[in-house]
């Protein structure tokens, strides 16, 4: 009887989860389907998931030829990598100092970090834009990367993680003759991979998909990130060519989706942060 009850409960659980998953996946599935339809079919009144006439090749070649997809992807990779690396290089020593060193401004810094978490980029966008304009760095990687180089979220995340690291580990490193920088490089970072991985997901996903900031500082197509490129594509080239647009979108979202699927297990580990023991 109990096994029966369990199986009923399981079926119910699975049903709820599947419905949820389907709900979230529906737009993506629809996108994949639309990317393979011809223009006439997209605007036909009937709604079917499987294209009557497979026009994937046609749509993809349109998407690839009309905009420089490789530039977009390259820009995306460069911007995301730069942002991530700089964020890590800034945030890890900062979080280490706040978590493990005693200094007078520690409390003030903590308050500043908390305040920083509360201020969205949209609030500071205009002043930063004006400043970049004066410095004439609009339309450059600098303009795309600089505002995100210090991530208070990263500092906060690493701070929590480092606080859980045993003090004795750092004491041992000091007695072994390591400098503070040496401790960060040789003890903290090698043991912070779960936190770094978790942060990598947040950072890369956020900045790969970001449209708001590139839209403000970039007008030159050469520096366009993938979402911005899509926008140009729609506005200038495709107009109402949804098949090609969906194909382009598919190309742009594919790197993140495959990266996540490949490293799924590690990502989940990173987010749940199985801390270090012993």
């Amino acid at each position, binding site marked *: 009887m109990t096994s029966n009850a369990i199986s009923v409960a399981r079926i119910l659980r699975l049903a709820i989860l599947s419905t949820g998953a389907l709900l979230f996946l529906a737009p993506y599935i629809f996108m994949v389907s639309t990317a393979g339809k011809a223009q006439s079919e997209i605007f036909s009144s009937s709604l079917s998931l499987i294209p009557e006439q497979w026009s994937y090749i046609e749509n993809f070649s349109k998407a690839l030829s009309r905009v420089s997809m490789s530039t977009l992807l390259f820009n995306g990779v460069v911007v995301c990598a730069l942002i991530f690396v700089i964020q890590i290089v800034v945030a890890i020593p900062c979080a280490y100092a706040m978590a493990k060193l005693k200094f007078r401004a520690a409390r003030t810094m903590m308050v500043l970090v908390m305040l920083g978490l509360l201020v969205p980029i949209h609030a500071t966008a205009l002043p930063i834009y004006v400043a970049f304009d004066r410095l004439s760095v609009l339309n450059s990687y600098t303009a795309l990367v600089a505002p995100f180089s210090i991530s208070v979220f990263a500092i906060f995340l690493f701070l929590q993680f480092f606080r859980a690291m*045993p003090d*004795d*580990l750092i*004491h*041992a*490193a*000091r*007695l*072994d*003759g*390591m400098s503070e920088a*040496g401790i960060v490089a*040789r*003890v903290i970072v*090698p*043991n912070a991979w779960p936190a770094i991985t978790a942060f990598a997901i947040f950072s890369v996903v956020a900045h790969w998909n970001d449209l708001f900031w590139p839209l403000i500082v970039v007008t030159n197509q050469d520096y366009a990130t993938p979402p911005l490129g899509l926008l140009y594509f729609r506005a200038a080239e495709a107009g109402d060519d949804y098949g090609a647009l969906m194909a382009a979108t598919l190309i742009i979202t594919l790197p993140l989706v495959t990266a996540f699927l490949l490293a799924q297990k590690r990502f989940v580990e990173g987010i749940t942060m199985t801390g*270090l*023991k*012993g």
Partner: protein
Amino acid sequence: MSVLSLRGITKSYAGNAILKGVSLEAEAGEFIALVGPSGCGKSTLLRIVAGLDHGDTGEIVIGGRSVARMAAADRNVAMVFQSYALYPHLTAGQNIAVPLAMRRLTAAQRLPFVGNVLPGQKQIRTDIQRQVKEMALALKIDHLLDRKPGQMSGGQRQRVALARAMVRRPAVFLMDEPLSNLDANLRVHARGEIVDLHRRAGVPTLYVTHDQSEALSMADRVAVMIGGSLLQLATPKEIYDNPAHIEVARFLGQPKINVLETRTDAAGIVRFGDLVLLAKRGQAPDAPVKLAIRPEFVRFHAAGAGRLTARVERMEFLGSEVIVHARLDAIGEVITAKAAPAEAAALAIGQPVDVEFMAERVMLFDSEGARLQAEPVAIATTLEKIHG
């Protein structure tokens, strides 16, 4: 000349005095156990010696150099932590090699990739590997060198931590309760090993523990710290037989020493049952004093005509001995005796007994807790001497 000397070290956190002027001298090759109840400041003292914490005042001299202003790394001390603090991402062998690599290789030589092609480093690295291997053999952990701390048992980690501390031949060895994370059997075994290693290495050692049996069994000298003060520093035998302070007497010994409050009479003599004690440095007349005696020097006899009688309340059978608790009829205090099982067989709970103290093992302390040297006097002669 002492290799390590601490002079008047004080430390307070937020107005709380943790250390109240601790001074201590360690001779070459000496093993000193710092023992005391938790919160007595012993670990803080160790951290100050290591340079991980800084005292408010006081001086630390290691090997003739004053190190109070030096960074931890420059003091040439090694420490074994309670949690072992092994680097979780390195194998045992790499863990042991860290202190050597940090000292022998230059910053450039330690860089990944670049360091591997710099001249001279290869020789040093093979040398380090050889030393790690030797150390591992000495501690019988050579088969573990490729394992990470997470794959080792507590006892194995403790050995790796010891190896990491010993490998660079420090001037002073500091250990912060290194055995407290081991199970009881392993702990006794590891005690002997640490003492052996210390003998062979000959490095002066400060060993912090809250376990009195560890302190008494391992150390050349035991330093008892209570409430931020070092109350006594002496050999284990001296500190057990001849405590300088009532707190020292109370802290050491299992079961606890019996302490009875009493007073000196008008002539400055303490009388308690059959006992007559005369404090050597003329104790003030009619003053409160504490009379203390260890349970092994107390005997209970089946009721007779003694002056001090008690009633047995509780008996704990421990195999080789029996701990007997009895309440004194006169003052209602419980005193404890350690008896051989054969002796205890004659006793039963609720039974009235005569209490006998071994007079020469009774100690007197004044109301502040300081030791009063006292001398038992036979009743007849005392009375003659005092009154006659």
